[in-house]
């Protein structure tokens, strides 16, 4: 493995790990606040129990997300000093604001976790909402920085120099809105489905059913609404990428030849050498419609991009198929759930619907990781699109591969420990949180 690949993989693993914790840390506070709101309004103790159980989850995920985020702020320089030396002053604005948002999140979380019976109940509730809002803001700001790498703005690139820097323009680059929207919704989809799936499993096992049913409903509603909004945001993103980064769209679709009335390729195995896709399902004209809004529109293919500037096609294509495919499955489950909420109320307790949610538990996060693979691999070989190549940004230090092994081992062990921890939190609900349960200790 060469140093560039090792550095890319280490960055990918670090981000892929961080993103799961960051998403849960920014979305769960909203679930928690809804449960908390119902507790304050209805004084139904189950809601208080759910709130407390979820706040433990938030604490675990927030702390793990905070350390993995700290690590990332150093890794940017450790792995990509050539990039940071030039990019830092340009796209640093969202990071400096994110520092504030994240700090506020940490402070608000301190109030929230230790504030039970110490603060005014509604002030306490507001601190929980602030955790969620500032977490979401942090996420949007960090994605705005990533968007700048896809859509560089706010400077003039003259003779290899970065002149006339304008950090505000850089932050509000062309891609920031579409990417931040898509990512924020994705965070709600994946966390909603993951949390709902866990509670659905516990309902199916007949454990603390009242507790888990309330928790399930809050998470499932968030996840289902977000899942149905995501295709709209995906459509906005696709049209945007078609204009800004045609090479990325072409790789996503394994679209080798520029043509009008281009077909949408579903599945298949891309053959880069032969410039074709085997075993794929092709819907005529649909790609043109999705990218341009016109069935006859022209979609640029990889033939328009010099060979040295083409992203890896197979990885980007597969990742894109996984993301869209799982997204559609979740839309389907979401629609069934809405029918259960409004038309067929008895479905809400039906094991088959709960089983669907259990199956869908990891789907959101798999789709999320696949989506980031599309964004990042689809931008290659560039680290700053059209300006700087990833290979020119990597650290001159040899032996990055050892650091990659080390960090991979750390992330794998952390994943295992967090899984054990969560498993214990979930199986101990009866004793720790559900005050209506017989085994409850803390009555």
């Amino acid at each position: 493995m060469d140093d560039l690949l090792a550095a890319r993989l280490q960055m990918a693993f670090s981000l892929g790990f961080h993103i799961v914790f960051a998403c849960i840390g920014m979305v769960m506070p909203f679930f928690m606040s809804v449960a908390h709101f119902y507790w304050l309004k209805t004084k139904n103790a189950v809601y208080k129990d759910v709130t407390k159980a979820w706040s433990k989850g938030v604490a675990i995920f927030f702390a793990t997300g905070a350390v993995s985020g700290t690590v990332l702020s150093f890794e940017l320089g450790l792995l990509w000093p050539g990039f940071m030396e030039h990019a830092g002053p340009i796209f640093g604005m969202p990071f400096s604001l994110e520092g504030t948002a994240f700090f506020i999140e940490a402070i608000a979380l301190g109030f929230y976790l230790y504030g039970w019976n110490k603060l005014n109940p509604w002030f306490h509730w507001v601190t929980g909402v602030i955790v969620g809002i500032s977490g979401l803001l942090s996420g949007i700001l960090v994605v705005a920085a990533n968007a700048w790498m896809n859509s560089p703005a706010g400077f003039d690139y003259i003779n290899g120099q970065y002149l006339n820097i304008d950090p505000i323009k850089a932050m509000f680059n062309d891609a920031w809105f579409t990417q931040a929207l898509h990512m924020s919704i994705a965070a709600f989809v994946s966390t909603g489905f993951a949390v709902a799936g866990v509670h659905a499993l516990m309902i199916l096992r007949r454990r603390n059913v009242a507790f888990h049913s309330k928790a399930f409903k809050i998470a499932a509603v968030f996840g289902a609404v977000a899942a149905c909004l995501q295709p709209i945001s995906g459509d906005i993103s696709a049209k945007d990428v078609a204009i800004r980064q045609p090479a990325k769209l072409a790789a996503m679709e394994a679209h080798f030849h520029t043509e009008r009335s281009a077909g949408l390729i579903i599945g298949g195995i891309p053959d880069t050498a032969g410039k074709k896709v085997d075993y794929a399902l092709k819907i005529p004209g649909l790609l043109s419609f999705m990218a341009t809004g016109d069935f006859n529109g022209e979609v640029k293919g990889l033939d328009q991009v010099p060979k040295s500037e083409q992203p890896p096609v197979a990885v980007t294509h597969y990742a894109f198929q996984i993301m869209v495919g799982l997204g559609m499955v979740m839309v389907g489950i979401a629609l069934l759930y809405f029918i259960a909420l409004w038309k067929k109320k008895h479905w809400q307790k039906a094991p088959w619907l709960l089983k669907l949610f259990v199956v869908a538990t990891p789907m959101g996060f798999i789709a999320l990781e696949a989506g980031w693979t599309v964004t990042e691999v689809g931008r290659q070989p560039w680290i700053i699109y059209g300006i700087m190549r990833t290979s020119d940004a990597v650290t001159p230090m040899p032996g990055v591969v050892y650091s990659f092994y080390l960090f991979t081992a750390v992330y794998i062990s952390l994943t295992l420990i967090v899984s054990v921890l969560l498993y214990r939190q979930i199986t101990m609900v009866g004793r720790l949180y559900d005050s209506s349960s017989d085994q409850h200790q803390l009555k």
Partner: protein
Amino acid sequence: MIYVVIVFLWTSILLYLLLGGADFGAGIIELFTSGKNRSRTRKTMYEAIGPIWEANHMWLIIAIVILFVGFPKIYSTISVYLHIPLVCMLLGIIARGTAFVFRNYDAVKDDMQKLYSPIFMYSSLITPLFLGIIAASSVSAKIDLKASNFPDAYIWSWLNWFSVSVGVFTVSICAFLASIFIIGQTDQPADTRYFVNKARKTIFIVMISGALVFIAAYIEHVPLMDWIFGGYPGMLAIGLASLSLLLMFYMLQKEKPVLLRLLAGFQITMILFAATYTHFPNIVLLKNEATLSLLAHQGQAKTIDSLGYALLIGSIFILPALFYLIYIFQKKENTSQT
């Protein structure tokens, strides 16, 4: 505006050293406490740092963001040549942060605690050790931009007696801060006496490791004496720190926790001041008298301006909230004790 940014950078480093340092110290003290006293030390420490422990570590992120936005050349040079100690520090940060949460939030308290606790304690030691090594390496003129082989570029840039001694000194400072901080956190007279004794010991350790830094500087030809005693401000800062240390011994007998904390904070501020002011505006001293300067290597004007405004606006939100957080939990603790 550049001076606003520099003040924020310096203040974030100071606050990280004070608050994060006390936090690391909690783990170090626990490590060096014998079995029978460990659990009460741990319990008192946890109650003290629980609500603000996340916020304490944000200062490092603020400092690093200021560095990479405002002074990218400095950030990238340190990142390249001090890669190895930075990775060690990061592993310490990961291990410590997660072990702390895991041991406090695990639903079952069983043998897993035997895994979390040592990880927490040892990483509390390793992280400030490497922080000190990194800080010392950035001024010890051992980083060689023209190095042509791996050890010269990436190992001898940080592995020397001076850097290691500053690392040890940083560890002892953290232990010192925690031992002073913990005194006011208990209302049991026996515990207080125990913690006061502990604080006395850590003060001696700080003095010994401080002396070692000077010896190591002499061995490694780092002109530390000139830096600190070459000008009045440095002499004054170290003089005041020494005086306040004497005062502190007296106060330890009187058991005045708030005053003790202020004195400890004052001493660390003076030490950081003495250690940084001579070089200003240089922040990194490289081999062959090359330097990286906060003024000469700053980003373009618009970057520095927007960074300065972002920090000012941020602090309007952060500081009052942070003080209120500390205030409310200190107050509640005191009222619940009486």
